[in-house]
């Protein structure tokens, strides 16, 4: 690899970890599992990418789990997702806690709402001129008030292309320093254009690690048959070949069945050994 567009100290594998749900009836078990996953990701030298009420389903926050369970966030190895469905107080609390825990990477996304989740207001983000707070306002706010943080943004290659690139420019202008795409399962022309037009921008592509490919139907915008055969590991290998300069974000990774295969694939892990 002559050139790696992943910045230093930014390991190429992001492993998504979803914190326990608020309505969990076996919370302690879920927390134990969270801790085990987190520690394993830390030990591998990967980045633990911790979601924020994914799909609008109420869950505990990543920083709470880390703090409450006494886990250790290794420098540069934790990425906290942060969406626009919070009160201002909660937002500040999360960012302050991250600083306390030595976590300085956040992925700022618009996110999914639910009746239970409050939404940040434009005035709270010092963006009175906008109708509603999106990731752009959130990125700008974090950069303005928490300059130590590196803020990432999402990139969706399935949205109308022109629109998505315009949005990307606004996110970058607001201070986004890296992007993570929606899941792709093959060479994607929009991602190709992204890499070509933004050569300095660190890009991480999301790989779908579940065998249930049809769950992606809503993301890609067309129906995928329920019986579609899909080999996640094989697809991941191919994506790594197609996009050697990109990091890879692993969603729905099976810790029991897939983790060792991922570790074996990883340059960081080999170096760590």
């Amino acid at each position, binding site marked *: 690899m002559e050139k790696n567009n992943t910045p230093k100290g930014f390991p190429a594998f992001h492993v998504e970890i979803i914190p326990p749900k608020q309505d969990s009836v076996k919370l302690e078990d879920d927390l134990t599992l969270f801790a085990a996953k987190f520690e394993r990701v830390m030990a591998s030298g990967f980045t633990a990418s911790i979601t924020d009420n994914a799909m609008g389903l109420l869950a505990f926050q990543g920083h709470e789990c880390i703090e409450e369970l006494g886990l250790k966030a290794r420098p540069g190895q934790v990425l906290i997702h942060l969406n626009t469905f919070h009160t201002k107080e909660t937002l500040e609390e999360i960012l302050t806690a991250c600083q306390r825990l030595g976590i300085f990477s956040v992925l700022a996304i618009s996110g999914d709402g*639910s009746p239970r989740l409050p939404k940040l207001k434009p005035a709270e983000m010092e963006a009175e001129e906008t109708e*509603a707070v999106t990731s752009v306002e959130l990125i700008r706010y974090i950069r303005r008030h928490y300059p130590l943080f590196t803020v990432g943004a999402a990139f969706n290659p399935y949205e109308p292309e022109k629109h998505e690139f315009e949005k990307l420019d606004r996110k970058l202008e607001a201070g986004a320093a890296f992007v993570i795409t929606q899941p792709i399962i093959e060479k994607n022309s929009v991602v190709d254009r992204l890499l070509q037009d933004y050569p300095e921008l660190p890009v991480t592509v999301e790989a779908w690690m579940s065998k249930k490919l049809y769950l992606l139907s809503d993301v890609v915008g067309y129906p995928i048959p329920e019986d579609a055969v899909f080999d996640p590991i094989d697809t991941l290998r191919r994506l790594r070949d197609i996009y050697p300069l990109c990091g890879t974000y692993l969603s729905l990774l099976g810790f029991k069945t897939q983790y060792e295969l991922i570790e074996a694939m990883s340059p960081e892990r080999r170096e760590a050994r």
Partner: protein
Amino acid sequence: MKIQSEQEKSSYKNVWTVAEVANGAVHPVSYELIGAARRLADARGSQVWTVALGCGHTGEAGSLFAYGADKVILVDDSRLEAFNDELECNILQRLTIRYRPEILLCAATSRGRALIPRLAGKLHAGLTADCTGLAIDPGNGDLLQTRPAFGGNIMATIRSSEYRPQMATVRPKVMSAPEPLPGRTGEIIRETVEPGDVFKVKEILQSVRQNGSAVSLGDARIIVAGGRAMKGPEGFVLLERFASLVGGAVGASRAAVDNGWISYPHQVGQTGATVQTDVYIACGISGQIQHLIGMQSCKTIIAIDVDDTTPMMKLADIAVKGDLFEIIPAVIKEIETVKSKQEKA
């Protein structure tokens, strides 16, 4: 009150309505209730009595007779100017114990929905909220009350055979008001606030009217309504534009309101407003039954949605299948074009 014998049961007579009086004027829902009560009373061979609690509304009694009341119990007192749960409940409790109505109907307004359950609690009477149908069982004379249950997915018929009075609330516009008969009169029974009525009653420090903040879905000729598929508050900005172009009001499904995209006064359906407009344009509303029963009496229903298998798309007179965020702007543009041509011509 639990009924111990047939003799006791037959001592309860007549159908009562509680008039909705606000700021000295009778609210139209009061006439809708009288219309429903008239049908029930005729089926029972009994009378319609309307209780009108308020202040400065004595002159309104005539209209209550015109719509079908046989007797009006009037309590005109300055302490009844604003709604006071305890005071009105105490008066009604006293009157119902004295006169023993068989049936008592009240509007399911914010006042009725607070007052009547308190009264039912005191009297140990059966109460059915938000009825969409009221009838008399021809067999035993019981009141059959129909209301949507389980989020409006099913209609339940409810009765309270062993208790009197049988009490029900009805939302505004669910029943239609009868044609008034000017000159029809009846007996006015004047009652007063008694000393016992004002015991343990709250203080009303101030009543504030906020004109303009009210969304008048009821007065609109056209409603442009949005649901879950409008995706967010931005979607409703688009619908505002659409609505203002056609001179309509913006409505919403419960899902959109629950998500905080638009405020509750815009909600149409069983738990919001019931509407009967000339045109109802449903944008991205799948059509949960609780929504449909609030708007299916509109004259022309137009549905726009990406999924044409939804109940709303099936119910509609005109169903447009496609991407809401492409269709709606295109429709707005088209209507603007037609209108500007019409203005020129």
